[in-house]
Structure formats: C-alpha cells, structure tokens
C-alpha cells in the first residue's frame, strides 16, 4: 500500500488492531464487487488492481464516475445510515484487497476509542478528497474555455 493511504493515516497501534480484523480477498477482473442500493456491510482497502465506481443508467452500460487504485479505501456507506451503497463497484483488473466486516469494525470501535477516532478521521479525509476531485471535474477545466465562457 502507498504511504498516502491508510498506513499513513492511522497510527500504528490502532492500525494493527484494525488489520487483525481484515482478511485478504481477490476479485478477478470484471467482478461486480457491490451494487448500487445493496446493503453496505463491508469495506475494502485495495492492495493491487483497479476498481471502477459506477451509476446505473437505463439504456446504457453503467456510467463510470471514478476509478480507485492501489491504497485506496473502497466503500464508506457502511459508516452511516442508510447503510446502502450509493454507487456500484467493478474490478477493472485482477484486484487484491483487504476486506473488513463493518459490524466487527464498528464493534471494535465501541471499545477502542483511539481506533474509532483515527478511522473516522481517515474516512472523512478520503471523502473530502473525493469531494474535491468531483468538484474539480465539475469545473470542466479541459473544456474549450477552461471553465470560463467564450470571451
């Protein structure tokens, strides 16, 4: 995992207690890891490979809105109600990842306040980063007039 991912974000002690709950998974390319609207009871930290997040659009293949690569958190809808995936996820290449059961992690966090705090801070940072990226793309910077209007 890259140093900008969870390794850097969560101090060593709580990180080790978290990782003890995880187990390694692999998904062949093309696997639908989860579907929009499904129950969000797990999350993954991608070790290798890429995952596309998509939205179902009637009449066409799902529209990809973002690609996640190595070191990235896959899934945060487990953290807050309604605990449903708001996007779908598909492996674009063979993926190896750590999988975590959300209920187990939340239960550990009840007892382990240091982990609770660090994990929440990490997830908020991830969400903030994705929000910034989405807003940047909203600007359509590569458009003909670079987010301005023709002068």
């Amino acid at each position, binding site marked *: 995992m890259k140093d900008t991912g969870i390794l850097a974000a969560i101090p060593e002690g709580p990180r080790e207690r978290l990782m003890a709950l995880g187990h390694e998974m692999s998904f062949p390319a093309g696997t639908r890891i989860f579907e929009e609207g499904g129950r969000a009871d797990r999350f993954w930290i991608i070790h290798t490979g890429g995952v596309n997040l998509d939205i179902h659009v009637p009449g066409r293949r799902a529209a990809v809105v973002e690609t996640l690569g190595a070191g990235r958190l896959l899934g945060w809808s487990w953290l807050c109600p309604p605990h449903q995936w708001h996007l779908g996820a598909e492996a674009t290449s063979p993926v190896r990842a750590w999988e975590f059961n959300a209920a187990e992690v939340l239960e550990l966090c009840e007892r382990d306040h240091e982990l609770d705090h660090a994990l929440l801070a990490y997830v908020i940072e991830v969400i903030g980063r994705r929000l910034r990226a989405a807003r940047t793309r909203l600007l359509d910077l590569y458009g*003909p*007039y*670079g*987010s*301005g*209007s*023709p*002068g």
Partner: protein
Amino acid sequence: MASATAPPAAGDTACVLDRDGMGALVRELRARGRTVIGPTVRDDAIVLAKLESAEELPYGWGVEHEAGYYRVRRRPDGAAFAHSAGPQSWKSFLHPERVRQWAADRGPDGEMTVRPERDEPPSFAFLGVRPCDLRAIQIQDRVMIGGPHRDATYGARRGGAFLIVVECTEPGATCFCVSMDTGPAARPGYDLALTEVVDEAGHRFLARAGTDEGAEILAALPRRPADDLTRTRAREDVEAAAGRMGRTMPEVDLRALLAGTLDAERWNDVAARCLTCGNCTMACPTCFCTTTEDVTDLTGDHAERWRRWESCYDLDFTHLPGGSVRGSGRSRYRQWLTHKLGTWWDQFDSSGCVGCGRCIVWCPVGIDITEEAHALHQESLDGQAGTEDGRP
C-alpha cells in the same frame, strides 16, 4: 546620449549662455540636421513639440498643478523652464503611440513575404529634458533595448537622440523626484545640462557638456565662461527646489511595501474612485505597454502589423480564452501601482516611477500615487492587511 564616448569632466565645459545663446543652440542643432523637440505653449498647456526656434520656448510661462488640475499661468520673470511636467513625455517620440512593425504579402500559391518596417526616424534633439524624465528615458531604455530582444523602433529613435537636460528649479505641487531619487539636479546620461538662472544679473543658462558632441556644440555657441555667481545661484536654486517638493513617498522600501500589501483593504478604497480610464498610463513617462493590430487590404493579400499603446486598465489586457484575469478595477489599479513601484524592480532592476507627478495631475478623479502609497504603508503599520484568502 548621442555619443558613446566617455563624458569629459563637467568643469572643462561649464559656460554661460544668455537668451541669444539659447537661440544659437537651437540653430546649431538644426544646422546639424537635428529635429529639435522642446516645450512650447499650445492649447493652454506646455506641450512637447518640434521647435523651429528657441523663441517658441515657453518664456514667461509657468504651470499650476494639483491632483486632477493643470493650468498654465504667466510668470513675470520670463523664465523658459520654470514649469514642471506637462501632459506628454518623451516617450511620444521614442516609443510612438502607433507604429507599423511589418508588412506581409501573400502570393498566388500562398507564399508569404514579410518585410520589416524600415523606420528612418529623425535625428532628435530633446531640449528641456527634466532630470526625472531623463531617468524615465533610461528606464524605458532597459525595457525596450536593454533585454535579450531589442526593439528596433525604439532603438533607432533613441540611438541618435541628443539629450539636453534642464535642471529643475521650480518643482510643482505634484512633484516628488526627491523621493524617487531622480532629481531635481541633473544625473549622468545627458549630452548637455543647463540650469536656468534669472536674477538681477540677468536671464542666463549655466551649461555644461556630458559628452564630446555636447562639448563640440557648446564650443560653437556664443557663450562666456561660467562665473562664480552663476554657478552659486544655479546650485542654490536646484538645492532649494529639492526642498520644495509638493509630494513625498513614504520613506520605506516601496518594493517590499507593495509586495506585502497585495490584499490590503486600501485597494477597495481606491477602486471605488478609479475610473480605470488609463490616463495615468498614457501620461506616465515609463509606461510602455502595447497591443498589436493586424490589418489587411481589400484583396486580403496584403497585411500589416501595427503596434499601439495599450493600458493595463483595459479589461481585455489580460484576456485568456476563459475570460480576463484582472476582471475588477481593484486588481487593475493594483497591477499598475505594484508594477510601477514594486515588481518593476524584479523585471527591470529599477523602480518604474520617477516622481514626475503626471499620473496625479492627469487623473480625472485626482487619485494620487503618493497618497495611495502612504495609505498602504499606514495600513501595513496598522497590521490591517487582510490574509490572502480572506477577501471576497
């Protein structure tokens, strides 16, 4: 300077010209093929224009200046150079408002022929260059011909120009050359320097040469050796002028002041007054910005490239495909002032301001560069300058 040779010691050539000597000076310059440009009264202003004779000089005229105010007035002493900056500066002759740079023709098979403009400017003699304006010429020299790319139009006009500085003995209410360290005494760079003296001993000019050509011309004029009285009076008058500046700049490092006040509240204040008309940039003797115009004839096969003065106050000045970078009046005034007093140092290793006061006089709403600098300084002292991101 017309000559690149080392200037002889000033003492060698110091002499006194009377009013007839001044007439002879203009005649001598014209006889040498020079186009003499100097101050003359026209349209209720002292303008710079081609002089046929020294009698066209503004003998007996002075000016009254204030922010947004300019009037010529008679003066009883008959002095020719007892006035300070007028609406124009020498850049009108060295860096003309509009010039053709090249012409291009397109042949039947699309081949292009480009002909550079063959500018054969007159051989200028500038009579009555004030010390601040001499510095302004030297500043434009750095911009136009001092960098890696030499501007041919400016270079051709400047290369042969003969400069006659007249020291300042009558500063105006908007003058601050002492703050900018450009006057009122003549600094090196002239061919001839004159100091006008009017007293009980008569109306005369203390003259000295800065170059061999200057000395040669002086030698051809009716003159008398410089006497102690004239030397003393000339020195005292110039020293007294230094104490009569109408304006001052804050005595701080202006470059640092401007670099540190980009987010000052004061910019909003001045923006509320500034019309972004660009008068200050047109009147400023160092402002050099230009734009280009491409024109074709009716066949479409003959094209010309013209260059004309442009102002950083024009909205289109910073146009990019997405819009103008400096959309607000605040940012455009800030650009002008920070460039003039601050970033000019980074770009050309000098200040862009010489303290002539033209921008104050010709501002239709009387914005005063010195007042703005003092206000910025005060704001920085008060620690009221906003943070980078704190302003709407």
